[in-house]
């Protein structure tokens, strides 16, 4: 059997952990959960902008890793595999949410329009501190379409390589780069007032 490979920081690699788990080592699974729960939460939260839903999606991700552990094969990086599962679940949740919103809004009458949330409530002049800047950025991220949102989160917040993003979302690297560029240009156009202050 091959010697367990280690990360530069001396930790056992993700791929070795999942192999141990495949052989029945539950402690290895717990280590995987500890290693990835916050990373995945940040990824999914930036995608859904709702911590409760994001935690639920991350839980479901780990549940699927547990149930389908034998589907993982070492030809792929473990991080790619788990991000793919989380991304798919997040997109499904987003579609579900859109359907719910469609049905709830379609039940409103014309007189209910005053209840719609207005972007002016969060005008940049009123909110200058860091927390609200982050909130404004997050709101603008949410306005991006799912395919742009996903790549910009993976690249600029999760700081994954283009190659890994390409494998996670299963599109060519050139397409990933193009999407990242377009997403950044849209965001910087909408956040100009905020970014110019920096």
């Amino acid at each position, binding site marked *: 059997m091959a010697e367990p490979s280690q990360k530069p920081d001396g930790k056992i690699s993700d791929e070795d952990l999942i192999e141990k788990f495949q052989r029945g080592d539950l402690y290895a699974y717990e280590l995987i959960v500890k290693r990835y729960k916050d990373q995945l939460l*940040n990824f999914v939260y*930036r995608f859904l902008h709702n911590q409760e839903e994001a935690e639920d999606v*991350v839980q479901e991700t780990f*549940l699927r890793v547990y149930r*389908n552990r034998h589907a993982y094969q070492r030809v792929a990086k473990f991080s790619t595999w788990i991000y793919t599962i989380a991304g798919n679940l997040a997109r499904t949740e987003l579609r579900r949410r859109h359907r719910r919103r469609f049905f709830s809004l379609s039940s409103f009458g014309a007189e209910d329009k005053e209840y719609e949330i207005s972007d002016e409530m969060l005008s940049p002049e009123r909110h200058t501190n860091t927390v609200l800047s982050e909130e404004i*950025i997050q709101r603008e991220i949410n306005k991006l379409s799912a395919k742009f949102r996903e790549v910009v989160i993976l690249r600029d917040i999760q700081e994954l390589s283009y190659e890994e993003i390409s494998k996670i979302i299963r599109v060519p690297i050139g397409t990933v780069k*193009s999407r990242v*560029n377009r997403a950044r240009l849209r965001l910087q156009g909408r956040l100009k007032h905020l970014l110019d202050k920096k």
Partner: protein
Amino acid sequence: MKNCERFTELFSDYAEDGLPPAEKRELDVHLQQCSECRSAVTGVVNLRASLRQMPGLTTSPDFETILRTRIKMARRSHPMPMWNRGHLDPRRVVTLATAVAVVGCFLYLWPRLSDASFQPVSPAIAVSQLQATPNGVLSSVTPATIMYTLDRVTPQLLSTFGAAGRSPKRAASTPLDSSRTETALYPPTTSVSYQTITF
């Protein structure tokens, strides 16, 4: 404007310092002349810095407890399918099936291979051999062989011999007729009795 569109596609690579030197020099020249593109590139650089500084979230304290509970519930309500269990992966199943087949073949063939004297005898030969002995018994014919032969003795054959009602004593006293060969199988005087064959 046409140039701006072309350069816009390079902004991300430029901000990440990933442009080839020639393209970078070309874009630098353009940025010196175009304030709009310069502002956009600065915006992209600042945006990346802002996104990296976004505070990280942490899961709630009971995240792992809830996960354990969900796993337990899932295991109860949906037991893992057999093909998804580690010990039943396809390679193991194929190996196991091959082993079972080999053992089965061995068990089936072993008694036949080990019994070298086992030679199926045609009913005609067996009957003629039986008739060639004083008691209707051939020493080289084992009981197993006789039983095998009996399986092939049809009721028609037995009736031809007139076995019914004949005593073993009379059958044993039947004189040897050298003219009875495989070509003269069923002479009317043949007295192989049912009892003789099945002794």
